[in-house]
């Protein structure tokens, strides 16, 4: 439920860009923007995670978004300027980070769900015990 809004916003963003005729970039710039996209995705996953963990702060999130995008774009560009495939390094690191973030989100949700189930089970047990003691009390009387 809570992920619905960001996902919807992503789709709306793509749709708006298409409506406003943001033309896809050709050539090597397109590649740099693609790697910047990965950085953005990574930051958003990180934001979701910290939000779920209750550690979210606006300034960290926004500065992370901007700086990650600029750094990944810049590294990819620099790599091509000095003849080292830094693009690959950026893609690798960001990919790994997205994976980590997503798995942490999954674990958090799983724990939450398991906790809720456990709580429900305990509540049922308590209710049963109470009913039993009530019965015994009735029988004793």
């Amino acid at each position, binding site marked *: 439920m809570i992920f619905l809004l960001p996902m919807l916003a*992503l789709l709306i963003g793509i749709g708006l860009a298409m409506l406003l005729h943001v033309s896809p970039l050709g050539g090597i710039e397109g590649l740099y923007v693609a790697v910047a996209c990965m950085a953005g995705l990574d930051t958003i996953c990180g934001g979701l995670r910290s939000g779920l963990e209750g550690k979210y702060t606006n300034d960290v*999130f926004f500065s992370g978004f901007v700086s990650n995008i600029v750094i990944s774009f810049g590294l990819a560009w620099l790599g091509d300027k000095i003849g080292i495939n830094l693009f690959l390094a950026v893609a690798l690191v960001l990919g790994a980070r997205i994976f980590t973030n997503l798995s942490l989100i999954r674990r958090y949700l799983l724990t939450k769900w398991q906790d809720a189930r456990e709580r429900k089970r305990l509540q049922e047990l308590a209710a049963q015990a109470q009913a039993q003691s009530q019965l015994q009390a009735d029988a004793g009387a």
Partner: protein
Amino acid sequence: MNPFASRISGNSWVLPVSGLCLVLGFMVRAAAITDTTRNDRLSALDKTQQFRIGLGTIDLQQQYLGLQKDFEGLQGEVSKLRTENDNLQKTIGTSGPTSKLLNQSLQDAKAFAGLTAVDGPGVKITLIDSKKASFGPIQENIIHDTDILSVTNELFASGAEAIDVNGQRIVGTSAVRCAGPIVFMDGVRIASPIIVRAIGDAKTLMGGLNIPEGVLDQIRRTDPSMVQVEEVKNMRIGAYSGSTDRKYAKTTEGK
């Protein structure tokens, strides 16, 4: 109040994250590979990725199929026009003794060049990919372009006068080329079974083909079932149906 709104207001992070998701959507669109940017972008990628992205595009394949259809249609037209040309030359040939002689030499030259269909006895060789597994870097179990080349070379060396490979007449400009799982014979795709037919003295041709350690022996060494040879009493080998255009070679008439 709906529960959705209260959940959002309870989590301060949802709205900023959604906002930046919107921005990310714009970036994704800007980085997307579409029909207009594909060619630009592909050159910046490495080979395997180019292949992966290329897999998703079927336009090229359809273009290819369309062109092949055109090609087949044009080929039919060429052979039709050549038959008409033959008939015209024959009618000219009957009009007088000089033109008759001229026509005779013209027809001889055309038969030699492979531009007319010819009949005669000869041999038929069928080359089939082996069903056995192959080991080593070069796949010995399939028929390669070089196998076809060495077979036709051996046939010409043994006195064959006309050869075709899967219906493609071999002429002076014929080329056989490997193209992965198939072979291009004068630009036409052929695959196993490959049938090579040659007109000539059947006994001599068979002798040449079956020389110990000769071309067929080398293929048979991998798997004897890859080669079948039979003598043919009479068969017709069709005319060359490809292009005969010349752009650079000029004839030196009267010099």
